[in-house]
């Protein structure tokens, strides 16, 4: 930037960690707003929500849960590897995390695709004609919440990509781990949200 370049040289890992946590709080509240909407409509339409949830494939949901949990572990391990100065291990673990995230998205793509084929998508005339209001709400929320979550996965992929490049270049290392640690924190947030999304959408049959 312009004149005060040296400000950015000031490196404060604790500060950037708090910054990341604060950002995570805003993300939690962003999804929090949706969870409020979900809980209100579920309270108002308990039976329709049960019925609609039958449409969702628990196996695919559970598979994606397992994928995200494992990826959360691998990225957490990569920070340990970085601190132990094992650069190669760090990179491999990050790459595994990256791949798992991609697999999650592919799964999601097929899952959504099946719904679309059945005429279930936001604004579908089929839904308005065939389903009760509670079911329309359920799927509206399903697409918004899993869609927003998928956007966060993509954002996580981008951040991980940066972290990966910087670890390879050697500018993120045991003494300057902030970028990788923050990428990890962000990725765990994505995991955290899914931990709630999964039972609320797939397990209420």
């Amino acid at each position, binding site marked *: 930037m312009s004149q005060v370049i040296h400000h950015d040289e000031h490196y404060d890992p604790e500060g950037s960690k708090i910054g990341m946590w604060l950002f995570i709080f805003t993300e939690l509240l962003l999804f929090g707003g949706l969870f*409020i909407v979900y809980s209100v409509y579920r309270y108002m339409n308990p039976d329709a929500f049960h019925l609609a949830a039958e449409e969702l494939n628990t196996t695919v949901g559970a598979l994606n849960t397992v994928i995200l949990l494992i990826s959360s572990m691998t990225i957490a391990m990569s920070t340990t590897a970085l601190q132990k100065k094992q650069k190669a291990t760090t990179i491999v673990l990050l790459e595994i995390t990256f791949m798992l995230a991609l697999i999650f998205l592919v799964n999601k793509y097929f899952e959504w695709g099946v719904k679309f084929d059945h005429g279930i998508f936001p604004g579908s005339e089929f839904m308005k004609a065939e389903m009760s209001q509670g079911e329309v709400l359920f799927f509206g929320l399903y697409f918004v919440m899993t869609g927003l979550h998928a956007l966060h996965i993509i954002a996580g992929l981008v951040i991980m990509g940066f972290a990966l490049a910087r670890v390879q270049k050697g500018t993120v290392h045991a003494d300057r781990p902030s970028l990788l640690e923050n990428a990890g924190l962000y990725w765990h947030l994505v995991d955290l949200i899914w931990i709630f999304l999964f*039972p609320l959408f797939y397990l209420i*049959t």
Partner: protein
Amino acid sequence: MENEKHHIVPYRIYAIILLLLLLLTFLSIAITNIELGAFTVAGALLLASIKSSLVLVYFMHLKFDKAYIQIMVGLVILLFIAVVLVTFFDYYFR
């Protein structure tokens, strides 16, 4: 700001936490098949809360962070729960 020495979490801990998380996931799938009536939601939320605490405390290193970060996280979660409760003052009594 010479930073405090980082606590290095051994791989083993992460592996144990993952096992616990997977176990809880399968448990929550299993209990949906049992008819618990009104407690279905409570059960699912309880298990999800345990899982998320594990992620927060170990994966997100809260256990090894300074107290004020832990307090912030706790207060934000409490604030959100309080907002949900106050919202339901409307819907529950309507």
